[in-house]
């Protein structure tokens, strides 16, 4: 049998296929022209919006909120996750609460946070941080709890104190799982921020842009904003992957 060598250009095929299909759909007017603008119009709107248009500004507002939310979430959840994960008993005692709120749709928390923080940015960022924090917390705690027992023993047998075992071994052992949490957390934060920008008295952000374009029936703009949001989500994930590969070079080895 012939060995399989994967061409790095392979993913491009899917993109070309989708755009081609889109062109065909527009050409034969499968969907109403107003609802489905041509790829050319959409990408022109995307280009114009991102280079000096409203879309670029909204894009960066969303980046700002998402990053701030993730940062806050990480700052709270990582130390707390380590603390809880270091004692399995402790984690088991709060596991249900964490899992319960992790399973609660963060969007259901909007009204509560609105009461607490008003209609400003604080609400959007804090709901997103809340959602992301639980995801990060759970992953960090599991990363710490699942630290390889042999490695902990090895440190202990060499005379490491409990604190040294924690800082020299457990923390590093939990890093790969922490990054899984961060990647999931930032994705969730983006979802929550975009939804919040649509409905919670917003004047900017990608969510607001999509919503406004739809209200004005500016379809190319709406699609452009959707693509910008997609690119942002993908880019954030990729960024965390690259950082992870740099800092957690041993992951999966």
């Amino acid at each position, binding site marked *: 049998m012939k060995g399989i060598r994967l061409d790095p250009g392979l993913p491009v095929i899917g993109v070309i296929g989708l755009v081609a299909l889109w062109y065909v759909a527009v050409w034969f007017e499968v969907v109403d022209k107003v609802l489905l603008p041509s790829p050319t119009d959409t990408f022109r709107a995307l280009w114009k919006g991102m280079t000096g248009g409203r879309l670029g500004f909204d894009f960066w507002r969303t980046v700002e909120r998402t990053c701030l939310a993730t940062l806050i979430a990480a700052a709270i959840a990582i130390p707390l996750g380590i603390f809880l994960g270091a004692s399995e008993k402790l984690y088991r005692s709060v596991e249900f609460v964490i899992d319960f709120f992790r399973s609660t749709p963060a969007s259901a928390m909007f009204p509560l946070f609105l009461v607490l923080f008003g209609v400003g940015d604080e609400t959007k960022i804090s709901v997103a941080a809340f959602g992301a924090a639980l995801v990060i917390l759970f992953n960090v705690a599991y990363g710490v709890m699942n630290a390889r027992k042999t490695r902990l*023993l090895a440190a202990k047998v060499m005379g490491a104190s409990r604190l040294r075992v924690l800082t020299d071994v457990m923390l590093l052992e939990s890093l790969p799982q922490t990054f899984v949490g961060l990647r999931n957390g930032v994705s969730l934060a983006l979802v929550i921020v975009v939804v919040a920008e649509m409905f919670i008295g917003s004047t900017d952000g990608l969510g607001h842009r999509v919503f406004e374009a739809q209200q004005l029936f500016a379809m190319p703009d709406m699609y452009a904003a959707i693509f910008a949001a997609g690119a942002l989500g993908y880019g954030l994930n990729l960024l965390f992957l690259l950082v992870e590969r740099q800092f957690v070079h041993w992951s999966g080895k």
Partner: protein
Amino acid sequence: MNREGGNARAASAGPAVIAAAGAAGSAHVTIRGLCKRFDDAVVYDRFDLDIPHGKLISVFGPNGCGKSTLINMIAGLIPTDGGEILFEGKPLRDIKFGYVFQNYREALFPWLRSLDNIEYPLKLMKLPKGERKARTERLLAHLGVKLDLRRYPYELSGGQQQLISIMRALVVEPEILFLDEPFSALDYEMTLFMRDQLQRVFVETGTTTVLVSHDLEEAVYLADRILLLSRRPAAIADYVSYDAPRPRTGATLSQQDFVRVKAHCLDVFQREVRKA
């Protein structure tokens, strides 16, 4: 048929005989009245053992008899349920020792370069950087190891990784070295090579060494004495001496002496297995 030759004087089980044997070379580790149980299984019940100074002891016995449990208790990795383990009269916390795990992949720190892995226990001892470097270099020169230590453990072969583990255990200049089936995850070629590396370390340093092995050939080849354990609760089935000169080589394996000792150990082992 008597298989016990001149060099392979086997002591029969029992602390009195062991103590007598220990008098020849002073005892480094004395174990008295050791007890250990896991749930319902009694693994050790008033177990006595002397480990002589500067000798390499192999521990061999039926599966699940508690070979690893024994060295893990001696090295303080798992608690005992009773009894006393002393190192020339001192408790474990007062001595320096090295421990080599079977699973080198999980025992080394993948986030540290090999060199930093070796130096890690020195860091725990709070030695200054220069001293750490000097010690590591001394050890490397001593062992004649040619490895790129700037690499991460996962970039090395299994044997090389285990070699790093052994060096990490040796760098503190331990009084006693424990190895728990250190070569059982390696292929045969690497195992042969590593046996000779270990022998070389032993000849060079003369450190009291306790090796748990599941391979009788290896147990005899490396040992000054082979500790044969019975089934649970583990007792000393035999404590066989083997004093062929070192360095032992491939030729040793076919010498009469070796063959006789190994055959005797196998007899004892099979007798113990059949008892079940």
